[in-house]
């Protein structure tokens, strides 16, 4: 066991570091290092534009989607090299947020199920950030219960006609393409009648309506489909095999979780290190220390769990469901950290706005955004089910919705 770079890794690190030093948009460094969950925005510039420019620059320098094959816009790097890159990229990594769904989930799914032609056509632009992708899975009737989705796709000649509605689609408003799961056969059990596609978000009949979030921002959307035409060539996987295709997406979601999960710990540690309370520096207070220590070991536990996963990955093992723990631990922790940071400031902790309240505002945004971490991409409860069932081997819930034709499952108001 060691954390040392091999000679190749050390060379890679040196090269990455030099390139970043020469090319990164340093004018945003300070702002980015202060940004945290729920507050990744720049004062003067549009974060998506800045993100796109950085991604493009990386792609041209051969530093985008490192672990992807070269022909699809990547570098063919090892998992460990990818981690090294993330370490070196540091705060600029926060600029990659708009591309995470595309890079982490849509890309790998296209890679696994798309035709060679499509892969060469779409992936390099996805990698370079020129085109942004979104994931159109959740629906009003099915979030945790993705397989309960109702958006219909019907075959018509060489095309499919799609009607229905998706919801909670992050970034749909600035996305160029989307990965779309639909129901193609409602007469078979729910997991068997699904089919996956990708589509141009500018297609006729696609309407994107932003949803205002609890934290005041607008990052997710409703997406309506009215007689949208998708060519059969944009189908991913077999007809009726969409559930398996979606599992590939979800499994890849785990790989992409790895290093960049926000826990709030660095922020609270820094905050307590500098905060003065009536009886001295907050960090000298035993109660504060006890809390910080509790969070510190969670944060480091997650970090080293992800290192273990990367080591396993680099030996060719598949990332298992045990990686589900990251989000499960971090979501609740962010909420607790944010409210403790506010607690430490007393009544003034509730204030937002003014520039001198930067710290306060940071934790408030964390508090307001953290609930989404416990919901998006698998709720805490679903993640616990996954751990219990897929890691520990416990039986699944007793189900009333399996092995029954989809259109015979009890619902409300269909």
């Amino acid at each position, binding site marked *: 066991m060691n954390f040392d770079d091999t000679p190749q890794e050390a060379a890679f690190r040196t090269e990455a570091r030099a390139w970043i030093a020469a090319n990164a948009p340093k004018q945003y460094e300070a702002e980015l290092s202060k940004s945290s969950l729920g507050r990744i925005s720049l004062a003067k510039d549009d974060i998506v534009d800045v993100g796109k420019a950085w991604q493009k620059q990386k792609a041209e320098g051969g530093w985008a989607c490192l672990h992807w094959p070269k022909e699809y816009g990547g570098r063919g790097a090892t998992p460990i090299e990818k981690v090294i890159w993330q370490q070196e990229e540091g705060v600029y990594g926060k600029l990659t947020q708009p591309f995470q769904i595309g890079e982490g989930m849509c890309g790998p799914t296209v890679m696994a199920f798309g035709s060679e032609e499509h892969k060469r056509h779409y992936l390099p632009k996805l990698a370079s950030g020129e085109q942004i992708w979104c994931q159109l899975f*959740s629906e009003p*009737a*099915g*979030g*945790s*219960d993705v397989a*309960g989705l109702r958006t219909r796709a019907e075959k018509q000649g060489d095309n499919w006609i799609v009607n229905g509605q998706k*919801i*909670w689609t992050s970034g749909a408003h600035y996305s160029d393409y989307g990965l779309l799961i639909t129901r193609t056969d409602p007469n078979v059990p729910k997991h068997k009648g699904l089919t996956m596609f990708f589509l141009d978000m500018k297609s006729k009949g696609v309407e994107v309506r932003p*949803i*205002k*979030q*609890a*934290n*005041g921002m607008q990052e997710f959307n409703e997406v309506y489909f009215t007689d949208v035409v998708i060519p059969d060539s944009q189908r991913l996987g077999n007809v009726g095999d969409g559930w398996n295709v979606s599992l590939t997406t979800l499994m890849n979601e785990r790989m992409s979780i790895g290093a960049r999960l926000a826990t709030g710990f660095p922020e609270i540690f820094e905050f307590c290190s500098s905060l003065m*309370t*009536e009886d001295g520096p907050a960090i000298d207070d035993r*109660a504060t220390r006890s809390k910080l220590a509790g969070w510190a070991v969670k944060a480091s536990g997650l970090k080293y769990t992800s290192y273990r996963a990367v080591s396993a990955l680099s030996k060719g093992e598949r990332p298992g469901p045990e990686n589900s723990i990251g989000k499960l631990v971090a979501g609740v922790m962010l*909420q607790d950290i944010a*409210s403790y940071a*506010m*607690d*430490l*400031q*007393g*009544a*003034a*902790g*509730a*204030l*937002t*706005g*003014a520039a001198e309240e930067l710290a306060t505002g940071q934790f*408030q945004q964390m*508090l*307001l955004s953290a*609930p*989404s971490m*416990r*919901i*998006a991409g698998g*709720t*805490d*409860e679903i993640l*616990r*089910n996954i751990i219990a069932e897929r890691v520990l081997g416990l039986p699944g*819930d007793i*189900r*009333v*919705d399996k092995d*029954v034709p989809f259109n015979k*499952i*009890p*619902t*409300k108001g269909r």
Partner: protein
Amino acid sequence: MNFDFSDEQKQMRDEARKFLAEKCPPKAVRAVLDGHASYDKELWKGLAEMGFLGVAIPEEFGGAGAGHLELCVIAEEMGRALAPVPFSSTVYLAAEAILLAGSAAQKKKWLPAIASGEAIGTLALFEGKGNPSPDGIKLAASGGSLNGVKKPVPDGAIADFAVVTGRTGSTGRDGDISLFLVDLKAGGVEAKALTSLDPSRGQAELTFRNCKAEPLGAAGEGWSILTQVLDRAAVLMAFEQVGGADRALEMGRDYALDRIAFGRPIGSFQAVKHMLADMYVSATLARSNCYYGAWALSTNASELPEAAAAARISATQAFQHCAKNNIQVHGGMGFTWEFDCHMYYRRANATALGLGSLSYWEDALIDRMRKKNAA
């Protein structure tokens, strides 16, 4: 022993609930949240007409003279409805301070105006970051004139008058602090509205420049009066918090019964059921602690300081817990602006700080228990 509200008090609760359901639906809260108004003036008027603003104000000062148990009952309903009005600052803080320490003239001037809804009052205590402490009070008070900055002041931008803590000595003891009553409309004070986590309730910064002020209570007694006011307000605020916690629990329960996933109501999954059961447990413990606080408040018992801290801690925890998990039960819907969950979440976290944070009250509780134990 009878550890429950009386039938009349329960009837009053039903009345208040009905009134607020009609006059203060979530839509009304949103109007303030979205910045269309600084508070709900219609509702404020209605509360005055119902006699709720003066429930605990004696009849001779224009109130209903009912008492503090009745006020607790109303407070709970205000919390349930997230009422976007300066109720807590006017009634729990300003009115209580005047009732405790005001001269006959001061009572006569302000209490009837509070009861009738004409005057909004507040307490200007904090001066930036930190919890209540005599050391934190720097605002200079000399010769009946105040100089300094208070922030955050709840409802400070809409208040007509404020009870202000000021420094009148520099011995490093509690006796350095005195209370003042300031007519905010009389000049010498500049109010600046501040934004906060919970925009449905106002916060402000008040800057005092040679501002004329009359003493409230004896000079040097400020800290001791303030402590009593905070204890009393803690009980009342705890009722608001319990009202909010209960409503958040109810919302979660209703959604869990209604929402179908995997062909069954999500409330049939133990993960969801147990989450709701735990919310119920914390709301119940908080309610019971609040009842004890209500008893201590209404009888002015020597147990009040301890009972108030316990009610405050328990209710803060319960409201935060219920509001947070109410979002979780709602899934994606819970994270939308459109659903009301976030309004409870915001209120829960903002009320957790208003009278001093959880850490502050935890410290206070143990301090008080220890002193009692030693006695």
